[in-house]
């Protein structure tokens, strides 16, 4: 049993002082923590992204970020949008471009990164950045080998008019016949379809841009 007596109504000033004091103290603590961890957090994030880019464009050794300024690609600064990541080999040769895309999956938004080879006009790699799909079902889009095989050489060639010749289409598991089809996963049809649709939408936007401005990526490293 606490024997403490009830305090009478406190002086307003004491209340103000206490709250503002704590507020300032808290602000201070947060800033210290933020500033203290920022470099490492940024480094980790960059590393994670870099690792993903390396995965979707096999065979590169360095990357560089570009921004679409409406007409062409220019090297991107911190925070610029929308952006793509160009990957180069040792010799500084452009191997491919990694593009981020997202769309509604079974459970929530799925964010993916895919690599595009402008030379072959193919998608050459695919990686799921973020998904909340059902483990064991929907998350097969991250792990299922045969599903990932879809994206080793997927045709996204352009017509002369500059549009995708064969838009990407999801098909039922085992029904894939053409390079531009995404073979679905049994039991995760919705998630695999979502990937197909995200790709179809994103490629329609980005392929013409990148294909027609490949030269813009050839800048001094």
């Amino acid at each position: 049993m606490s024997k403490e007596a009830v305090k009478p109504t406190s002086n307003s000033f004491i209340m103000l002082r206490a709250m503002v004091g704590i507020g300032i103290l808290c602000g201070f603590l947060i800033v210290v923590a933020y500033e203290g961890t920022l470099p490492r957090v940024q480094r980790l994030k960059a590393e994670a992204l870099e690792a993903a880019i390396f995965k979707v464009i096999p065979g590169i050794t360095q990357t560089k970020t570009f921004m679409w300024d409406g007409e062409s690609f220019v090297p991107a600064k911190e925070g610029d949008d929308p952006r793509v990541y160009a990957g180069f080999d040792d010799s500084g040769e452009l191997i491919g471009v990694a593009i981020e895309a997202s769309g509604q999956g079974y459970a929530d938004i799925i964010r993916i990164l895919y690599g595009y080879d402008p030379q072959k006009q193919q998608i050459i790699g695919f990686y799921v950045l973020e998904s909340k799909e059902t483990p064991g079902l929907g998350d097969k889009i991250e792990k299922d080998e045969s599903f990932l095989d879809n994206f080793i050489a997927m045709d996204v060639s352009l017509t002369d008019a500059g549009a995708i010749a064969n838009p990407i289409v999801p098909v039922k598991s085992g029904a894939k016949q053409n390079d531009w089809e995404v073979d679905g996963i049994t039991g995760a049809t919705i998630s695999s379809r979502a990937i197909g649709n995200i790709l179809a939408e994103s490629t329609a936007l980005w392929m013409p841009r990148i294909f027609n401005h490949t030269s813009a990526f050839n800048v001094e490293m």
Partner: protein
Amino acid sequence: MSTGTNHTETKSTDEFIKGLWNENPVFVQVLGMCPVLAVSNTAENALAMGLATAFVLLMSNTLVSLLRNFIPKEVRIASFILIIATFVTITDYAIQAISVDLHKSLGAFISLIVVNCLILSRAEAFASKNTLGKSMMDALGMGLGFLFALFCLGAVREILGNGTFFGLALFPDTFQEWIVMILPAGGFFTLALWLLIFNLIKQRKEATA
């Protein structure tokens, strides 16, 4: 039972034990349910979340206990929330600095520790009235109790739902996962199961007592 009664001065260790068992925040008080259900789909997540919560609880109980004589009654809740939010933010950054993957899987729930009813209720019910030492013991006990409960859930859900424990496969390849355990519904069911076990133990104890 060890909850200090009568004339014996309560010992700090009692505060510690009670949080772990007799007044376990999850199984007995049913507090802070959101993270318990949401982030217990694997043992690893559960452990990380439990540690994060315990850390915030410890730090905020400490600070609240230290400042208890400076905070007028009228603004105490607001002040506590401020203090808690600060430590949550700090924890959030700390986890990001440790591993991006971990941060991704704990998701928004790190931020939501702010509103974990458990932390505010300990600040309000205990730390604001007790000395530093006791408050820290209380926080440790409650925090570990919370962690323990989270871990119980996480273990069951991961083992049945994924066939693994801390990511290590426990069964041969042919094991059929019970996916429901990883889904939200599985969280509800597993918590219900643990509560049932606790109630049954309690009932048996009462019957024999």
